[in-house]
């Protein structure tokens, strides 16, 4: 596959790994955070940590849009799905996220009409094909996905569709990064910046991280070599005591982002004054809702949504995992009460969650991995 295979070459990986190791100052520990869940997934899927020296720890960040949805919002979505004549449509990742009364998957087993889609456009198609039903699209994702939802709403408006709406749970990445930077529990040295969010927002929004907090950021692609190269560039900056924003994923990410995408978002959505993030609490101006002008496509206006806050279960330590304070296996219920099959928290159920990635792919100590790969 073009633009994929070339960035998966093992020999170049060894070369980069050697360079990275050479840049480590003796006795110093480095903590680099990869913000984006997609990066966490790649790191575990390709066994990238095997290429890094012991001195570098990768800390998993909150960039998993499914992981940060609080239980109360899941309950709200389930309530919408149970409304008469509603067809709920959702990406696959949401299907097994548990609310206080089960997940979409469980509701489907009880007879609720919930369908998995790969694109919000599929949801629109279902609306066209079922004029007597009300179709709701569960809109999740960071700024990567918001433009697609926005374009879909614009298309629905252009077609005058009367039976389509979205339940908007789009969140924005900068407030989450700021919450991490302001968190007293963490001392990070640098960030592997989100790749696909940056195709929309560009690289400028990260400038405050270098300017105000003195930490370098390298916006990274999603192939294993992209991530290794980004770590190399971060280590290079750190060795020179520099702090700047760099774009490793320049083949895809434009420095100024995608103006059309930002316009589409701006036209159809606006920031909520505050929004609750699982594990991170209430963050102001961190999530999007549908604008008044498009209220006929806003499920929260068309239906009455319970809006009940559900506390994160005490045993669930998703919050600390999302902030990078705890590694997945350090959560007390990891792998025992909380498994991909029986998830308690979102980090275990989302394919981009750190716990899911670790349980499904990385679940061996480095020692065992070294033993196994030489046998």
């Amino acid at each position, binding site marked *: *596959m*073009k*633009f*994929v295979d*070339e*960035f998966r*070459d093992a*020999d*170049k990986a*060894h*070369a*980069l790994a*050697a*360079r990275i190791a050479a840049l480590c100052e003796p006795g110093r520990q480095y903590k680099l955070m990869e913000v984006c869940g*997609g990066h966490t*997934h790649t790191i575990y899927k390709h066994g990238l940590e095997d290429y890094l020296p012991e001195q570098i720890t990768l800390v998993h960040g909150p960039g998993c849009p*499914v992981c940060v949805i609080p239980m109360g919002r899941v309950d709200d979505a389930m309530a919408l799905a149970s409304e008469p004549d509603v067809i709920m449509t959702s*990406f*696959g*990742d949401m299907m097994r996220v548990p609310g206080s009364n089960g997940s979409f998957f469980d509701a489907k087993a009880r007879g609720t009409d919930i369908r998995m889609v*790969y*694109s*919000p*456009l*599929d949801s629109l198609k279902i609306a066209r094909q079922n004029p007597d039903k009300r179709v709701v699209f569960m809109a*999740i*994702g960071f700024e*990567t*996905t918001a*433009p*697609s939802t926005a*374009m879909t709403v614009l298309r629905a408006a252009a077609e005058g569709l009367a039976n389509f709406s979205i339940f908007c749970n789009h969140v924005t990445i900068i407030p989450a990064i700021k919450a991490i930077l302001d968190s007293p529990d963490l001392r990070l040295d640098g960030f592997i910046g989100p790749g*696909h969010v940056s*195709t*929309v927002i560009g690289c400028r929004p990260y400038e405050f991280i270098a300017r105000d907090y003195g930490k370098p950021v390298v916006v990274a692609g*999603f192939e294993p*070599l992209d991530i290794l*190269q980004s770590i190399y560039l971060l280590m290079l900056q750190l060795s020179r005591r520099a702090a700047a924003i760099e774009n*490793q994923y*320049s*083949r*895809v*990410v*434009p420095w100024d982002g*995608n*103006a*059309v*995408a930002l316009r*589409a978002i701006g036209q159809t959505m606006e920031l909520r004054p505050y929004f609750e993030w699982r594990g991170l609490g209430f963050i102001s101006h961190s999530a999007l809702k549908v604008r008044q002008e498009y209220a006929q496509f806003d499920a929260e206006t068309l239906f009455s949504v319970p809006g009940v806050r559900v506390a994160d279960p005490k045993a669930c330590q998703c919050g600390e995992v999302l902030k990078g304070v705890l590694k997945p296996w350090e959560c007390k219920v990891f792998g025992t009460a909380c498994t991909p099959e029986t998830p308690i928290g979102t980090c275990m159920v989302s394919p981009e969650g750190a716990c899911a990635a670790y349980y499904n792919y990385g679940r061996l100590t480095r020692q065992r991995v070294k033993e196994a790969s030489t046998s």
Partner: protein
Amino acid sequence: MCLGIPGEVIEFLPDQADLARVDVSGVKRVINVGLLADERVEPGDWVLIHVGFALSKIDEAEAAAALQFLEGIGQAYEDELAALAESRIE
């Protein structure tokens, strides 16, 4: 909700605004290219696909530059290894 993957634009759908057929390893899919309205997109261009939309046009020059950097690292590494193997202090 998959990550973005690269695909090659084959053709635009004549009577449908914003829709194009792309090819990903021989598999063809129709996607919406409306988010690239500010750019010239032509058959043969590569785009990044995410949930049925093209998010960005892949800049082949930048891709080539990225690969060249990696080749350079790879070659330098080989050279170092070779040099290491040759220089034995005995």
